[in-house]
């Protein structure tokens, strides 16, 4: 028994030691699910850049999870120096509920604080047995669609808004037609997973559904990992421009004294090097030069913005995703 206590004490000491590291600085980047590979590469590049520029060693810790869940953790006290989440609304929530950053955070960095973008495309079974070519094919009876729950998943909101925007554009702005489209689409969804990774696993591992609606970066990256012989990528005629956003968490960096390095960390995302790393991990870069260089890997889709079809995230959330909003009204599980 005594041994056990000693063991515990030794382990405590062994564990506490690295935390006492002296002149190095540590950042915590709280991010959403599919960015793991991106930030793995990026953190390495930034550490090199920062060391060369200032001589300071920087270690970046990562936390990944569903975007809204991660925002909730930061609100509850997870000490993130920077947040890099799937949609602006989640960072808005941190500003509104925990007041850890000012509400105008989005205007502090270029491109509405969104250094890279993505869009929503489809993944189907090999050979595309159901002949899915565009959004319209998703509402045909007998097509099972896999998409996560927009109440809990950031990616799922973009999926929903992509469908909404398509129907709105196609009908020339007729909202009742768009409602009808959403109703039919979600009738074809057998299960709503809580996050984007969960939905991908449902489609890929459990073999459910005919088509997966997902992040372009996730699909392009996943195609390599999951085996190209089992799936085909389908690119719809139009889709939504997804703008994942990033911000420094002011109260945390001011307390820890990491504002300078945290800010540089996000700004470096906009540099040619940062943009290239994003493009390599299948995020669409903002920089035109880098975009041109990697144009081949991104399918050519006409993209519309959230602003064009609804408005800002506050408004979008109120109309579509709040309790009793359009999604609640239109979603009828089962059939």
């Amino acid at each position, binding site marked *: 028994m005594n041994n056990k206590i000693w063991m*515990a004490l030794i382990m405590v000491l062994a*564990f506490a030691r690295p935390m006492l590291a002296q002149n190095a600085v540590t950042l915590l980047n709280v991010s959403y699910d599919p960015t793991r590979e991106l930030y793995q590469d990026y953190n390495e590049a930034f550490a090199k850049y920062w060391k060369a520029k200032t001589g300071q060693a920087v270690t970046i810790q990562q936390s*990944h999870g569903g975007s809204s869940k991660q925002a909730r953790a930061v*609100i509850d006290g997870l000490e993130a120096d920077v947040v890099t989440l799937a949609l602006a609304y989640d960072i808005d929530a941190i500003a509104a509920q925990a007041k850890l950053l000012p509400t105008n955070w989005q205007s502090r960095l270029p491109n509405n604080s969104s250094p890279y973008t993505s869009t929503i495309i489809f993944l189907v079974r090999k050979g595309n047995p159901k002949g899915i070519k565009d959004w319209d094919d998703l509402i045909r009876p007998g097509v099972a669609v896999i998409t996560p729950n927009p109440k809990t998943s950031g990616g799922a909101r973009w999926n929903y808004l992509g469908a909404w925007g398509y129907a709105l554009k196609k009908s020339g702005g007729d909202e009742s037609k768009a409602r009808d489209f959403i109703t039919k689409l979600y009738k074809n969804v057998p299960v709503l997973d809580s996050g984007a990774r969960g939905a991908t696993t449902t489609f890929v591992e459990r073999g459910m559904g005919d088509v997966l609606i997902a992040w372009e970066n996730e699909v392009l990256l*996943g195609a390599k990992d999951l085996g190209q012989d089992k799936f085909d990528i389908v690119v719809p005629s139009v889709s939504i421009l997804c703008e994942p956003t990033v911000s420094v968490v002011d109260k945390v960096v001011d307390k820890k004294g990491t504002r300078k390095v945290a800010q540089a960390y996000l700004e470096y995302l906009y540099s040619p090097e940062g943009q290239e790393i994003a493009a390599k991990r299948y995020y669409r870069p903002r920089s035109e030069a880098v975009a041109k260089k990697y144009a081949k890997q991104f399918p050519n889709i006409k993209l519309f913005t959230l602003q064009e079809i609804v408005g800002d995230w506050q408004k979008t959330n109120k109309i579509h995703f709040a309790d009793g909003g359009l999604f609640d009204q239109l979603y009828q599980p089962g059939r």
Partner: protein
Amino acid sequence: MARTITLRTTSRSAATSVAQGATLESPWVRWTLTSIAIVFLGLFLFMPLAVVFVSAFGKGIAAYFASFREPDALAAIRLTLLAAGIAVPMNLVFGVAAAWAIAKFEFIGKSLLITLIDLPFSVSPVVSGLVYVLIFGLQGLLGPWLRAHDIKIIFAVPGIVLATIFVTFPFVARELIPLIQAQGNDEEEAALTLGASGWQTFFRVTLPNVKWGLVYGVIICNARAMGEFGAVSVVSGHIRGLTNTMPLHIEILYNEYQFVPAFAVASLLALLALLTLVVKSVVEWKSQQDLKEPEEDWSVEPA
């Protein structure tokens, strides 16, 4: 003395006849029941366990061991050991104290204490985790004060240790209470009349009498501490290499399509489960041996 022995013999022969009665069931009933049990165990216990190991070695032994060289995997293993290393000894001390108090003494609020000890069993682990978020979270009761004083509880190692202690709370106490109650007070009273002090009685009489139950309680407490997912997941914050325990790390790896490392780490937990089973059987066998010994002594005595 003699009477006790005759009583014991009759009860033993009664037990034998019952046992024979059970075997009088027609053979097909016995075979069906046995094979149902075996098929069920095979399907729901053995197969998943086998799948864990098959998947872990799916890409060869080198890939399997490479999974443990990952710094994040090592950190997860270290954190799990740390959490269990703190939670188990604390629950050991608490469990012995509580079981001793409950089994040996009468006091006001005793039934309340018993109910409270059982609480972590009846509460969902997710709720256990959320409770800590509500108390120590930034929006919670103590959150602002903790942040002002730069003390990190949740989304840090202390939160994980706390959550682990909470969910493993009842194991040692629950194991010991019936055991100490069954022992009665006779031996302790004898020790006291012979002049032993309170502590001496406790360490020389009470504790040795329940040692196997104690070992068993510690084993299952440890197994649960290392395997806990729900409560720890809520308070972890999932910072890689810092606040991920083994079960959390397994989930992350699985979600990242890294199946071999995921199952390799899972196989460690499965090994722990198997080891627990082995130690548990040994402990049960040992304690039965201990129970048998005095009986044999007695049977010689009256002759």
